[in-house]
């Protein structure tokens, strides 16, 4: 299932946030959204997930979600959004219960996603017992459990420290390599974007427009830590963003 953004514009009250955004998210690819703070990346992601409606333009699904897909558009949140009163297993089973999946079937799915996120031994732990990186892996396991057509990730790693971020990026690459998933991945971090993105859309400062879409063809599995090709792409992205970021930083917020 592909996603197509068709000329999306949006304003909150008098503030124009997004202007004429058109973008394709092809199946099995990770599309990164980068842009200065406040340019409307999270807003765009909420439109894609159907949590809000744009003032103009449409979000289109092309094709139908794959067989066995419980929640086609599934979020991974920056702050993990785990229920603190449920164990790791309970947090995953939460999203299955509403689809009537219980008992052995649920156990099988939970065991599978926990294994894929290397959490098998922590099924009975409560969120307060886990480190930040593990919490985010639980959130990713929960998202995988509903077998999403598209994962919507809003800065999933930015609450984590640099080392954990590296580890989790490796995890995401590993997950994708074993079973390619489709994702829209919002980030501030250009290193994350060039590491995970097949396609990187650079937004301008508010009102966000698409400045450029950068394609990186190198397969995810071959992208190393200090890859010169990726470094060049990162440099290019940064030159695109620098002016915007500086201007955005000096803007008064009048909302």
């Amino acid at each position, binding site marked *: 299932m592909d996603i197509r953004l068709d000329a999306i514009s949006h304003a909150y009250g008098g503030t124009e946030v997004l202007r004429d955004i058109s973008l394709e998210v092809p199946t099995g690819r990770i599309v990164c959204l980068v842009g200065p703070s406040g340019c409307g990346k999270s807003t765009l992601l909420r439109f894609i997930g159907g949590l809000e409606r744009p003032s103009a333009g449409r979000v289109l699904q092309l094709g139908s979600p794959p067989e066995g897909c419980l*929640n086609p558009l599934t979020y991974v*949140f920056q*702050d993990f959004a785990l229920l603190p009163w449920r164990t790791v297993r309970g947090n995953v089973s939460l*999203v299955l219960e*509403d689809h009537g999946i219980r008992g052995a079937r649920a156990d099988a799915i939970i065991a599978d996603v926990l294994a894929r996120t290397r959490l098998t031994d922590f099924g009975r732990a409560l969120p307060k017992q886990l480190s930040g990186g593990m919490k985010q892996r639980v959130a990713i396991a929960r998202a995988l459990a509903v077998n999403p057509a598209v994962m919507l990730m809003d800065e999933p790693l930015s609450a984590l420290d640099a080392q954990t971020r590296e580890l989790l990026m490796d995890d995401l690459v590993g997950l994708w390599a074993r079973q390619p998933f489709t994702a829209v991945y919002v980030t501030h971090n250009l290193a994350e974007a060039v590491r995970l993105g097949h396609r990187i859309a650079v937004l301008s400062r508010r009102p966000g427009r698409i400045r450029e879409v950068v394609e990186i063809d190198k397969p995810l599995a071959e992208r190393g830590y200090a890859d010169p090709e990726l470094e060049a792409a990162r440099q290019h992205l940064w030159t695109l963003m620098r002016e915007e970021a500086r201007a955005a930083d000096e803007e008064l917020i009048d909302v």
Partner: protein
Amino acid sequence: MSEATAPGQAPVEVRFRGGGFAPKANRWAGAVVFALAIAFVEWGTRAGWISALTLPRPSDVLGVFVELWQSGLLFKHLAPSLSRLVVGAAIGASFGVTLGILIGLFSHVRAALVPVVAAIFPIPKIALLPLFVIWFGIDEGSKYALIAFGTFTPTVVATYGAVDNVDRSLIRMGQSFGLSWRSIVLKIVLPGAMPGILSGLRISLAIAIILLVAAEMLGAEYGIGAYILEAGALYDLERLFAGVVILSLLGVVVSSAIGQIEKRLLGWRS
């Protein structure tokens, strides 16, 4: 800051200032305070510098207590009081929690009912007892109603405050996974509001015990409240105190019961 260590100055250990503000369980401290206070009064009344008209002697109060126990009167008084307390508080708290959740969830209900709750909260419920007697009869009905009404308002206020405090991002998460409205309320809003609801319940149940005495002012032959009021009317301080001690014990029992519930339900809090 020019030199690493000034000459002739010994290094000083950094003063620790991070303690406190972390309640720890200490089950004996409470008991020791009680025991000391009672021993003090006993001493004072025996030595004579507390007159028998000011405070009864604790050992005499204990004597009344033993007598109550042996004659079986204790349970004759306790049973109706407990049933009034349980029924009244259960009605009040369950209506309160339900309404509090509705106020927390629906803005229309909130707009309509928050002013009403604010208006009835400060009414001294005792003043309404005659009204309740007319509405619900002089028997148990009016007593249930008074206690229920008294527990209802603080429960409502605590509950909708607790619902307001549930992390919105968790609710968003539930919606983004397509959970039904019912699931979001039962699995996210209710557990999230539970800490606030339980601490509200502590206050409501204490109020219920206070109102028990008031409820037994009219038309009660037996009951702790009736017993206290009768002893008060006769200035029988020993019996008065015996009754008061029973109410205090009831308060301690209720409070520790809620503590146990919190321990079980809220173990997830760090």
